């Protein structure tokens, strides 16, 4: 579905990714974990064409999308829920969802909306409310819901658990797995919350300073002593959830 080959990218003269190779197969959840500044967000952004890759290729469903502008990439079935949620704060929840459906035929809007509201009943209760007045968890739901409105085949999620209470984090991860299982959406997930993210993932990669340091199935990485020490048992960049 998505293949990244030897990807280099960065900001100005500072290179943040030094040759990344990953692939995401249809129907999978693939997780990227890593400490702050490892380049996880940059990788997602580069896949979406902003910043541009300085070398390497991004291939989506057999098509080279490395040089396409961001909005064209989005139109090819790749939805990106960016870091920090980035909902439209002064627009209502319904308008936010409507914006998500910008590239979809109007005829599907009602069905898609019902589908998203079924996943996130909380949004259904707040359709007329302004996005900015939602709680953090609801905003995250809105960001994911908005991305789903574009009928993606591949969903890129950037730190959906950022700044959320543990209970809400669990909810969000449950929904991600539902989206994957029931709606057949392939997911590439970037997370700091390694425990949840790895237990969810079919396969996972660990990123360290712009390189893939370790790859394996979610369960393998979860049981890897080195990973446990660094990302799960409160080591450097450790887990945010104190209950773990």
């Amino acid at each position: 579905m998505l293949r990244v080959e030897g990807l280099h990218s960065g900001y100005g003269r500072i290179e943040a990714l030094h040759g990344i190779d990953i692939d995401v197969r249809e129907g999978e959840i693939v997780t990227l974990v890593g400490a702050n500044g490892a380049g996880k967000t940059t990788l997602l952004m580069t896949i979406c064409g902003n910043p541009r890759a300085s070398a390497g290729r991004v291939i989506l469903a057999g098509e080279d999308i490395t040089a396409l502008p961001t909005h064209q990439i989005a139109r090819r079935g790749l939805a990106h829920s960016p870091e920090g949620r980035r909902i439209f704060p002064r627009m209502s929840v319904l308008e936010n969802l409507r914006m998500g459906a910008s590239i979809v035929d109007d005829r599907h809007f009602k069905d898609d909306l019902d589908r998203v509201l079924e996943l996130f009943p909380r949004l259904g209760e707040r359709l007329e409310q302004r996005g900015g007045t939602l709680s953090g968890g609801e905003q995250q739901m809105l960001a994911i819901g908005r991305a789903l409105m574009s009928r993606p085949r591949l969903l890129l999620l950037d730190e959906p658990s950022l700044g959320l209470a543990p209970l809400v984090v669990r909810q969000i991860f449950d929904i991600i797995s539902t989206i994957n299982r029931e709606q057949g959406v392939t997911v590439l997930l970037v997370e700091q919350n390694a425990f949840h993210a790895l237990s969810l993932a079919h396969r996972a990669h660990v990123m360290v300073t712009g390189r893939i340091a370790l790859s394996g199935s979610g369960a393998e990485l979860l049981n890897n002593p080195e990973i446990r020490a660094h990302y799960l048992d409160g080591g450097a960049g450790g887990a945010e959830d104190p209950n773990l």
Partner: protein
Amino acid sequence: MEDSSPPLIRSAALAALLAALLALPLLGVRLVDSANGLSLSGRPELVAWAAGGVFCGRLIIDLFRRWIRDFSIRLPVPPPPPEWTRFGVGWALALFALVLPFLPFADRNLVDKATMVLIYIMLGWGLNIVVGLAGLLDLGFVAFYAVGAYSYALLSMTFGLSFWVCLPLAGLFAAAFGLALGFPVLRLRGDYLAIVTLGFGEIIRIVLQNWQDLTGGPIGISGIERPSLFGLSFKAVPPEGQTGFAEFFGLNYSADHRVIFLYFLILALALATNLFTLRIRRLPVGRAWEALREDEIACRSLGINPTTIKLSAFALGAMFAGFAGSFFATRQGFISPESFTFIESAMILAIVVLGGMGSQIGIVLAALLLVGLPEWFRDLQMYRMLAFGAAMVLIMLWKPSGLLSSRSPTIRLGGRA
């Protein structure tokens, strides 16, 4: 909150001290031309006046703020008015505008003033597309107004085209200039965009001022053709082959007819602008403008092409300024670069900001205040602009986000409202 008068006095004293420090070099010393050359002399009384003035002003503002706070605590915030009142107010205003020229107190002077206010309302509605909806801060909006005015004047003078043919052409020209401005500034936002648009506005004005052969330079263009109503002329003596308006309807000729006609013309143009904006807000492109104002990165990742969305906002806003410009030219019969200075851009922007960024009715209120107030203040003579400035400051203190800043959603469930 407990009463804390010492900080009140302290902040006023601090402001006064600052004012005194500033006033010392600016007002406190003076060059005196005496017998043995220039010498410096002091003017301490002016410094004292400045410091005292600032002290009192600061105190008044703080008290005013406190009063507003207490006031709003005593009065519970009213619930947002239901949707129908919003519409109701709009319809009532439109209806009032329709009958205004026929009301007993409406003399020629009032209708003329109302026409002026309507021009600014229309310009405000045009700029609202760019600034209020798309969030692109444009300080050079008057450029498009000028393009519209000169397009009409030149087309009409050179090719003898009528107002009704020139109006759409002037709109097109202005829209083209909107695109021309839009392309180079696509990547800019906020302050940076503001500076470039400011420069653009000045370029247009300076070109108009210096391209003597075409625009007549600082002398401007005079004797611009007045519009007719379906071929009915408003002149005292209709030109050869044309019927006069008064003659056609069996009225006695009166110069008021044209004033009233012009009033209705700009009313129609302004209402068309308003209807267009209200409609387009509910269409994908209008919603995309607002989304772009909120978050450009999110827009891109939703598959929206920011380039086309921004350009459409620039072009459409400019088009309405172009319409307003050609109306201005035909009303005045005379245009010169002096009518299109930066202060006009600032005025239109102030109307949009004061009105509440995006609120159509807010713009009407702000235009009435900003264009109307200086007229009411005429009795104050040289203090007129001072009162005008003070009124503006007070409004912003009272309502920091504009007169009407609430926004109604563009879709609701169960029928796309």
